[in-house]
């Protein structure tokens, strides 16, 4: 008993020593903590922060983290209610709903959202209040090999039927005609545009509907394309596996997000000449022409910020038009409308990419995944259906039953979180 007391005494002494250390470092009034992602725009901000510090006198403590680490760190800090974060980069579709529901974002009543597409702001809105400033957008495109198309005498496909025909012709000599993500949960976002173009949806008014005849037709098409013309092992491939295959010249067509163009034409990273790489809009389907166009990154302010004024100043600066144009000039597609209209931007960017953005902005659908709190689990469930479709080249007799089963499971998730139906 005595020994335990001694141990406790020592422990409490140690604690008080540490506590003293804490008391010595009082929080300075004009100091904010900012968490950024390992993302080109994060790098751009980091380089520009000294200017902000010089002009405002606010000291910015900045950390940058890989995106999944960023989510984990933010979740830990906010959930324990002892976060010191003021401003942070955030993925509206991945964590937005959960963070909004938990009240972790501060409402941005004073922010001027007029320069942003309405749909991109609405994603981060609840009860009329906006919580997320859209930062970076991405949309689905078709990357293709101009040289292979010329050799085969093919036209660039504008419909999904033409896409299938091109894939059939181009699959030869160890080159796969067509690739797109096949790895379950990762494929959900890239399959979404196909789903929309066949007239389907993941969620309709917060009810899962990806087992309708239109959705099944889309699944069969996607499965047939990847199962027949895709590279080997496609069901375990996401973008990080497909991009090297394209860069190595073993893939003729690849549909994925628009962010990859820079890397597949960079001569230090790719084996195919940039002149042979084309980018065009995702071909139209029988029932639609709506590639996804989403806000992949946004910026938010912590509801618990101790320095709300300084944080707001930083947020306004970090999402300003000037920095957006700077971002565009380094090939980061920004959410601000005015950044796309800037003359220097229009001159500097790839005209093919600008055309795909204009098309997606006009016709696109603002979601690439089921928008719900349990998005991770829902993606796993939908991923299983996609894999079944690919493994059977779209011919599975169980596909309808499997899709219905997963629809029910996703609806259960929605009900559990109180998000089912309505609105």
């Amino acid at each position, binding site marked *: 008993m005595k020994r335990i007391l001694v141990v406790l005494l020592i422990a409490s002494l140690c604690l008080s020593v540490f506590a003293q250390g804490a008391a010595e470092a009082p929080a300075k009034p004009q100091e904010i903590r900012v968490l950024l992602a390992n993302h080109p725009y994060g790098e751009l901000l980091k380089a520009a922060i000294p200017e902000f510090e010089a002009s405002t006198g606010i000291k910015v403590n900045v950390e940058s983290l890989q995106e999944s680490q960023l989510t984990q760190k933010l979740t*830990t800090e906010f959930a324990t209610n002892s976060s010191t974060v003021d401003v942070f980069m955030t993925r509206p579709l991945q964590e937005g709903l959960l963070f909004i529901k938990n009240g972790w974002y501060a409402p941005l009543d004073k922010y001027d959202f007029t320069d942003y597409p309405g749909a991109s702001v609405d994603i981060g809105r609840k009860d009329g209040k906006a919580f997320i400033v859209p930062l970076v957008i991405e949309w689905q495109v078709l990357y293709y090999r101009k040289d292979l198309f010329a050799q085969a005498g093919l036209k660039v496909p504008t419909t999904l039927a033409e896409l299938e025909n091109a894939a059939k012709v181009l699959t030869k000599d160890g080159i796969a005609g067509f690739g797109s993500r096949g790895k379950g949960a990762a494929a959900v976002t890239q399959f979404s545009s196909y789903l929309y173009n066949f007239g389907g949806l993941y969620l309709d008014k917060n009810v899962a509907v990806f087992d309708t005849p239109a959705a099944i037709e889309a699944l069969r098409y996607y499965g047939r394309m990847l199962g027949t013309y895709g590279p080997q092992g496609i069901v375990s491939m996401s973008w990080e596996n497909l991009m*090297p295959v394209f860069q*190595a010249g073993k893939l003729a067509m690849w549909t994925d997000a628009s962010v990859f163009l820079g890397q597949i034409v960079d001569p230090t990273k790719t084996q195919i000449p940039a002149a042979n790489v084309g980018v065009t809009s995702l071909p139209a389907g029988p029932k639609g022409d709506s590639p996804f166009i989403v806000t992949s990154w946004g910026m938010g302010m912590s509801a618990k910020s101790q320095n709300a004024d300084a944080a707001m100043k930083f947020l306004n600066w970090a999402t300003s038009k000037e920095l957006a144009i700077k971002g565009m000039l380094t090939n980061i597609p920004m959410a601000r409308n005015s950044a796309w209209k800037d003359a220097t931007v229009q001159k500097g960017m790839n005209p093919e990419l600008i055309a795909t953005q204009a098309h997606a902005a006009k016709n696109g659908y603002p979601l690439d995944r089921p928008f719900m709190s349990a998005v991770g689990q829902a993606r796993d469930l939908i991923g299983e259906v996609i894999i079944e479709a690919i493994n059977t080249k779209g011919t599975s007799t169980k596909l309808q039953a499997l899709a219905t089963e997963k629809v029910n499971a996703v609806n259960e998730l929605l009900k559990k979180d109180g998000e089912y139906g309505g609105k």
Partner: protein
Amino acid sequence: MRKSLRFRIGFPLLVLAIILPMLFPFVWMLLSAFKTQVDIISWPPKFFFSPTLLNFRKVISEQNFMLYLKNSSIVAFCAVAFSLALGLPAAYSIARFQQKKLSVLILIARLMPGISFLMPWYIIFSRLGLMDSYIALILSHMLIALPVVVWVMSAYFESIPREMEESAMVDGATLQRAFMTIIIPLSVPGVVTATTLSFIFSWNNFMFSQVLSMQKTRTLPIAVYNFMSYAEVDWGGVMAAAVAIMAPAIILTMVFQKYVVKGLTMGAVKG
């Protein structure tokens, strides 16, 4: 003893079959660290290529590698040192006084998934203003190092005959003195093993550092992730960083290994 022909051919083949799968990823990592991004993604894979030091230059200049190296060293060395200071007497006590329940308790701390400690720690450390401090990291890494020390050493101390310290005490030494001057020197191989193991566990720890460290105290395993950004992975940089992180651990283990062998043979001669 003459070995059969079958053994002489079969044994090396068997050894090769066992080590090849283990060595392959390591060799692949080493090769990729000297490749350009184009060479890394080329198919079929290139085993002959013109090596580049570009990746290592990136690791050292762009990524603040020296700071992370310093942080990792401070945290690992302190965590191991404090764990030895607390763990050696604890292990001795467990071994000599049969405190089995205590040792199970310590083992439970090790068996519990580390993530279950993180939330409470985060709350405690942030309330104490210890976020981004070495103290928080060292304390958390002691959770990894201390049980290793206690478990390796209590088994080792048990193997030392009780008569050793009894004869010292007959000559007038206190138990503490007998422990310091007789038992510890006899246990060097065990101490080295415990030190090496706990050092490696602390050196490689990712989870605790990720949540408890910020910009100033970030450790090496976190730094590897700096080469992965949104929609882009710099494989060459990742591989070079991994090589650079493994190197100190491997060198240290190799140096210590000599001591382990030496200590063992010394004991054998003296009987």
